């Protein structure tokens, strides 16, 4: 009697007649993470609908409609990916890595130029930016290489190998030129190496090299007449230290973004948000969408968005610790770092504490490739979570 009641009270997950949620695998997914990701994507559509209304003549909801389609596709992709055992990607690492590098390289050949840089392919219906998806692919491939190469060569050799593997696609992206994404690639590489256990001393060496490189790029190279960064890139990188110096230049955008956010005050200005509505803030549907949110919805709105990101990243870090295997740990760590880096740099740029690097705000910035890639990354996290949950029970979802 007692045993029977106990069984009824806590039915086995894989009962003979599993429920619909059970069939969909939902109990094994990370609910808060999914809510955070889908919530951010939905909020993005909402913000774009309000802030870019009538931006495109004849199509008042141009940006919102498209973003909604990308988000729905992305959520579907996220779900499908969640049901795949991510560990397969480890086996496919060479293929993934090759695809990553080739697709980025192909942009140089077939890509179309927008504002002086070639970043995307023009496909029917939408344009595809390989470097966005490349962020996820790099995590998957690099984590595989780290696991695979864990016993090959000395530690220094391994560190150099990981660095080279990570920085090769970063260099390609940098040449497009797309400094922001290149930096994201770099951050991903370092994060995977970090979670992968590369020695602190090696990180210290890398850090020193980075400082030297920065000095060389920003100070030494221009001094000897070999500018590595384009003029506007350098201006953007350095102008945040003196944003008001020239309102008509690089610091202008940042200044306007800061004014926009500040003017939102506690509760926001709603439709009276002149800063973003009257074009004072540039790129308001992409890189500076956080300024739009800050002005329209005030501290409450902006803090709400930041909280969703905090929730998302917390769940990602939690997934790192839950993973059933080391590959999952590295992948989750890489994705968590990718999200954290992009959110901090983009929001910091909007708030005037980080340079302008052209890094989109994951899920919120308008852009199909970015939204899809980010949702797919969340799908990978869900997969790790699901595998861990199922692994605890010793079964696979399908």
């Amino acid at each position, binding site marked *: 009697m007692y045993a029977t009641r106990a069984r009824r009270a806590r039915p086995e997950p894989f009962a003979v007649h599993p429920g619909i949620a059970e069939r969909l695998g939902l109990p094994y997914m990370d609910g808060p993470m999914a809510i955070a990701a889908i919530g951010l994507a939905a909020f993005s559509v909402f913000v774009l609908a309000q802030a870019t209304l009538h931006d495109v003549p004849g199509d008042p909801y141009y940006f919102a409609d498209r973003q909604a389609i990308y988000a729905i596709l992305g959520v579907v992709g996220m779900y499908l990916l969640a049901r795949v055992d991510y560990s397969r990607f480890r086996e496919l690492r060479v293929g993934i890595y090759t695809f990553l590098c080739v697709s980025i390289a192909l942009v140089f050949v077939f890509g179309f130029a927008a504002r002086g840089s070639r970043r995307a392919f023009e496909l029917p219906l939408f344009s595809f930016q390989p470097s966005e998806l490349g962020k996820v692919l790099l995590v998957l491939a690099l984590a595989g290489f780290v696991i695979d190469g864990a016993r090959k060569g000395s530690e220094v050799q391994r560190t150099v190998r990981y660095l080279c593997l990570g920085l090769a696609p970063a260099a390609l992206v940098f040449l497009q030129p797309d400094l922001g994404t290149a930096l994201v690639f770099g951050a991903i590489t370092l*994060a995977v190496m970090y979670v992968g256990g590369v020695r602190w001393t090696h990180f210290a060496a890398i850090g020193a090299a980075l400082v030297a490189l920065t000095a060389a790029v920003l100070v030494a190279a221009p001094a000897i007449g070999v500018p590595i960064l384009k003029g506007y890139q350098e201006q953007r990188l350095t102008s945040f230290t003196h944003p008001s110096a020239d309102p008509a230049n690089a610091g202008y955008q940042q200044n306007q973004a800061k004014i926009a956010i*500040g003017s939102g005050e506690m509760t926001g200005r709603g439709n009276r948000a002149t800063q973003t509505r009257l074009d004072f803030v540039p790129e308001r549907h992409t890189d500076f969408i956080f300024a739009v949110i800050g002005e329209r919805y005030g501290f409450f709105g902006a803090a709400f968005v930041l909280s969703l990101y905090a929730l998302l990243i917390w769940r990602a870090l939690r997934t790192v610790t839950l993973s059933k*295997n080391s590959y999952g740990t590295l992948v989750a760590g890489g994705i968590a770092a990718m999200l954290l880096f992009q959110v901090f740099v983009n929001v910091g740029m909007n708030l005037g504490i980080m340079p302008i690097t052209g890094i989109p705000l994951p899920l919120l910035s308008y852009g199909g490739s970015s939204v899809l890639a980010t949702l797919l990354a969340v799908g990978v996290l869900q997969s790790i979570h699901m595998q861990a949950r199922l692994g605890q029970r010793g079964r696979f979802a399908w």
Partner: protein
Amino acid sequence: MYLRSDERGPAMNNRLTLRIAIFGGFAVVLFAVLFFRLWLIQVIDGDKYLAEAKNNRTRSYRVSAPRGEILDRNGNVLVANRTSLALQVNPRKLPAEESQRRVEIARLAELTHSTPSRVRRTMRKELKLAPAAPVTLRRDVGHYLVYYLKENQQRFPGVEVQRVFVRDYPDGTLAAHLLGNVGEIEEEELKERRYRGLEPGDEIGQDGVEDTYDRYLRGRPGLTKVQVDALGQPTPNGRLVTQPPAPGDDLKLTIDENVQAAGEAAMAEKGLRGAFITMDVHTGEIIALGSYPTFEPALLTPPLTQKQVDETYRNPLAPLTDRAISGLYPTGSTFKPITAIAALESGKLTLSEVIEDTGQLVIGGQPFKNAGEAANGSVDLVEALEVSSDVFFYTLGYRMWKTGELQRWAHALGIGRPTGIDLPVAEETLLPSQHWRNQLYREGGTERPWSPGDNVQLATGQGDLQTNPLQMAVAYAAIANGGTIVTPHVGMQVDDAAGRVLKEFAPKPRRHVRMDSEYRAAILEGLHDAAQGGRGTSVDVFGSFPIPVAGKTGTAQRPPYPDQSWYGVLAPYPNPRIVTFVTMEEGGFGVEAAAPAAKKILEAYFAHRLAHEANGEEGEEGAGG
């Protein structure tokens, strides 16, 4: 390396846990930074940014206020406003590309009948003054040009046509020296207290009453706030606040347009450089004041063409100089009444004293001769004034040469000192005196100290004396009114746009000089005889004038130039209400040039009364009464 490559089992170990913990801590710190920064910007400094945002989206345009009109004492308009189309260019909206910019500036130069370098210079100059304001290249552009620009707007980025107020002078050159003109405020003027609150590009009065009474005439510019987008373009329905401009108040002058016109016509008729003034002897109200040659005040509105610059500023005849106020002349015999009052009051002459006029007076071996070397015989003061006996006044000058009474009285009557007229001129005149000459001599500025000859010269208005019709008019007025040194003025009252009187100007007399009424009566009698008596010097001109007057000719010697003609007249005699002074450089004897002009001025002033008397009626007094 702590990673195990096996796929099963929990992947965590202690070192990894530590790394993840650090990772998590790092994430917490980053989010804390973002939240703190967000709080700082939105909640702590939010008001500041909100103000910046509001400032960002609005542009304020100053809407210039029409200046008040300037009227004569009877309400006739001397200066009005009209709207004009001005061609303006906003240098910030010109093409950034230097080659395109050059093409457009060349086109603009062609349209404004200028040269590219002059257009650039104008833009540089104006930009220094007002960095954001559009630069006016040409005023009074025709409608055809406006249409041309509208049709070819894309070829002229940054060029616009603006409606501006400009001064309009319905009577052309009338009273040009009094009125002054209007121009954009200069950089240094912005710092002055009286121009507080003005901004670069605002217009202020320059010279004349436009300057003196600028604070009444100026008005208050309006303000239009327009919502703009990031490119500075006004947004549709974006007009936010409009504070209409407050037009300036109207200024009524003491000038009588008819008298003024008569005076200017009389001057122009002779065509000699000179000046005239007609003033109320009791109040100091200036009824007419002019200088010849004159100029068109309308032409002084920049930008000027080179020809206009040459004609006004570089003209050797100096048409811009107001000779009535800024002239520096000896006055000839018109000075004699001053000598007379000085001698009488200081006891150096009695009314009954007769002096033998032999035609010359020899002092220290140097002969001082009458004009024309005429001998007038025995004359008393009245007769001496009537015939303008130089010897009589030489004698008086000689009697006072050491004691300084002549200087003291001339000074008291206002010769050689500022009159306080309400026009922005520096009054630098000279009344020669013993002290002045000896000082100059000590400094090596002259070859001899003060001598009797100097005072003899001064007694007849010759020599070093440098004064002008205005000061002489004030001195004559004092003799006529019993010793009141009036403050000459042209501003009479300020009316608001509705015609209500806001302010009346009646400047207090400068001072009172005590003088014996018998002496005054004698002097006036002498002057009356000079104008209308049997042997009078100007009886040829005024002998048949129906209104009794008291007038004195003057012939000032200004070697190497020909003599300067003077005439001073008080009317009506014996209780004068106005004083008129006329002088003409190189006009010869006073009776030849200046007296006829003075008569024309009096005819205009008493036109009403003269018309009545011509009709045989006992009429009212003059038009200016």
